[in-house]
C-alpha cells in the first residue's frame, strides 16, 4: 500500500510544486494511477472542503488547493489508459441574456471544479437557445444560471420553459444564483434549487445528484 498522506497534505496546503513532486514520486514508486487521484489528491481536497465548511479555511485557500490538485491530476491522466478520471458530475454554467456580470458565476465554477465536478463555463449574455444547444452538446447533469439584475433574472424562467419545450427538462437539473435571487423566486420559476453562495452551490449539486 502506497502512503499518500504527504500528497494529501500538500494539496491541503495548496503547495503546487510539492504536489507535482510527490505525484511524480508516487508514479515512479509504482502506485496505482487511480489510487493517486482518489486516495492522494481527492482525499486532500475532501479535507479542504470540510475545513471550508467549518470556517477554518477560506475561498482563496480552497482555490489554491484546487489548483494544486488539478496539477497533480493532469500528470496522472495520461497513465489512466482509458479509465475515466473520477468525476462528481458535469455542470454547465453561464450568465443569462442581457447580463454581463461574471465574477460570482466564475467563482461558482471554480468551487465546483474544486469539488470534483466537470464544469463547462459557457460565459455571459447567453440567450435561452444557447443554453439548450449546450445541453444537447455536453449532456450535463446540472446547468447553473446566473444573474445579477432584477431585469435579467426573468430570463432564467425563459430558459426553463425552452428546456421543457425541447423535452430536455427531465434530463437536467437547473440551479440558479445571483444577488437578486431567493428560494422563493427559485420555486416560482420551477428551478430545482438555489444556492446563496459559491460554497453552497457545490453542496446543492451533490445533493441533487445523490
Amino acid at each position, binding site marked *: 500500500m502506497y502512503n499518500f498522506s504527504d500528497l494529501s497534505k500538500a494539496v491541503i496546503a*495548496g503547495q503546487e510544486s510539492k504536489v507535482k513532486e510527490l505525484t511524480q514520486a508516487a508514479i515512479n514508486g509504482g502506485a496505482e494511477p487511480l489510487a493517486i487521484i482518489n486516495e492522494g489528491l481527492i482525499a486532500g481536497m475532501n479535507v479542504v472542503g470540510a475545513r471550508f465548511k467549518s470556517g477554518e479555511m*477560506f*475561498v*482563496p*485557500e480552497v*482555490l*489554491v488547493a484546487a*489548483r494544486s490538485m488539478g496539477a497533480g491530476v493532469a500528470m496522472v491522466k495520461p497513465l489512466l489508459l482509458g479509465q475515466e478520471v473520477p468525476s462528481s458530475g458535469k455542470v454547465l454554467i453561464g450568465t443569462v441574456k442581457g447580463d454581463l456580470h461574471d*465574477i460570482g458565476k*466564475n*467563482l461558482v465554477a*471554480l468551487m465546483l471544479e474544486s469539488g470534483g465536478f466537470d464544469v463547462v463555463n459557457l460565459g455571459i449574455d447567453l440567450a435561452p437557445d444557447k443554453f439548450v444547444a449546450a445541453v444537447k452538446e455536453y449532456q450535463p447533469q446540472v446547468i447553473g444560471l446566473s444573474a445579477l439584475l432584477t431585469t435579467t433574472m426573468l430570463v432564467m424562467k425563459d430558459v426553463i420553459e425552452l428546456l421543457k419545450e425541447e423535452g430536455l427538462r427531465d434530463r437536467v437539473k437547473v440551479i440558479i444564483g445571483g444577488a437578486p435571487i*431567493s*428560494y422563493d423566486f427559485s420555486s416560482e420559476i420551477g428551478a430545482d434549487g*438555489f444556492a*446563496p*453562495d459559491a460554497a*453552497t452551490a457545490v453542496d446543492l449539486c451533490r445533493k441533487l445528484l445523490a
Partner: protein
Amino acid sequence: MPKSQYVRASFETCATPQFRVLSQDQCESIFLGALEVLQHTGAEVNSPEALEIYRKGGCRVDGTRVRFPSHLVEWAVRTAPSRITMYDRNGNRSMYLEGQNVYYGPGSANTFTLDPFTGERRRPLKQDTARAAIVSDALSNMDYVEDNGAPMDVTPTLADVHAFQAMVTNTTKPIIHWGFGINQYQDIVDMASACVGGLSELQKRPFLILYSESSPPLRHSSEAIDKALFAAKKDLPCIYTPCIFSGGVAPATMAGSLVVAVADALIGIVAGQLVREGSSFIMGGPISTMDMSSSSLAYGAPELSLLSAGLSNVARYMGIPMFSTAGCSDSKVIDTQLAIEAAFSILVAGLSGANLIHDCNLMDKGVTGSLELTVLDDEIIGMVKRILRGIEVNDDTLAVDVIDHVSPGGHFLGEEHTIERFRDEFWWPTLISRVRYDEWKLYGSKTLGQRVKEKTQEIINEHRAEPLSQKILDQIQAVVDRAEAREASLKSKK
C-alpha cells in the same frame, strides 16, 4: 505579541487613525487648573497616616484640610513612571501600559447581574465572578479580568476576597481588583503572591493591579487613600481614581470636570510617590454626566466618551498611564441601545489611546453586569482594533505587479499575494452576520442578541482556564480561611 500595537503602523505610514479632543495647550490648562485647585483649595483627607505623610512631604496641613504646593505635585508627576508592564499569571508580559497602547476589559463591583442562562436580573454570586473570569479568559479581545459584581452569597465584608479567589483560579489574564480595606488588600496580595511564588516575584512581574476610588470632589477617606499608600508600600501598581459625575460632584462643564478628575488623581499620586518614589500609578476612572432626571451617572452618554478621551489626552500630557471607560450602556436588556452605546464608546476610547479601557460588561447605569455584553463587546473591539491598525502602505501592499498579473477582468482570489495576506488584512466576524437572507433564515433567523447569548453560554459551559496546582489552590484557600477567621473574631468583638 508585539510591544507597540497600533502606533507602530503610523511610524511607517502616518495612516493609523488617531484623534485628540484636547490640544497640548488645552491639556496644560487643565493640568495647571488642577495644580491651582490643589494649592489653593486643597483637599479633605481623613487618614491620619496620609496626613502625616503629606505634612512631612511639604504640604500645608490644617486639621484634615491638605493644600499641595505645585512644585511637589509636579515632582510627583515626574517621578511616577510613564509606563507599566503587566504580566499574566504565568509571568509572561501581556500589557504594556504606555503611549497609546489600548487594552480592554470588563468592570467590577456592580450590585446586580444579568443571568446569561435565565435572563433574570438578580444579585451576583461567587459563581458569577468565576464565570466572569472564564468568559474574559476565553475572549481574545479581553486583555484583563474584573469581577462583574461583588458576590453576595459570601461573608459580606469579604466579597472582595472571595471574588479574587474566584477570578485567580479561573483565568491566567491580569486582574484589576478592588478591596474594602487594607486587611482585604493584604489577603488579595497574599493570594496573588501564592500563584507566582512570593511577593517579590509578584513585584517583579505583577499580574494584579489594585484599585481604589476616592469620593469627589476633593475628599479622600482613609478607606481610599490608605489603599494607595498600601499599594505604594507593597510596590504594586495602583489605579487611584475618583468617579466623576459632571454637574454633581464636578462642574457641569467638561473642562471643569476634567480639572476635578485630574486633581483627585494627583492626590493619590503624590501620596504614593512620597511613600515610594517611582511607585506605579494609573489615573482616570469613570467620568460622565450626571443624568439630571435620575441623578445617576450616565454610562452610555456621549459625554462619557468625550470626557474619557479628554482625560486620556491630559494623562498622556502628564505621562501617567490612563484607565478609561467604554463598552458600557444604560440599557436594561441586550438591545439596540446597548449595542449603540457600547460600540460608540469602544471606538472613541480606542481612538483616544487610553491604556486600560474598562466596564465592558456594565449596563443599567453601571448597576447591572452582563457577560453577554462582554461577549458582544469582544466583537466590537475586534472591529475597532482593525480600524486602529490602519492601512499599511508600501510596495508590497500597493501590489501593482499583482494587479498587472491578474490583468483586466480577472480576479485576485487565487493569487499567492491574496492567500498570504487576507487573514491579516481582513477582520473576521464571529457574531456579526453577513450571510444572505435565505441562509440566515435557514439557520433559524437568529438576532444578534440570540447569537450573543448562545456564544456566552457555550464559553461558560466549555471553556476552562489553565488550572493552578493543588498546592497553590490550597494556599489560596488558606488565605480565604484566615480572612474568614479574622472577620468572625472582629464581629464577635463588636
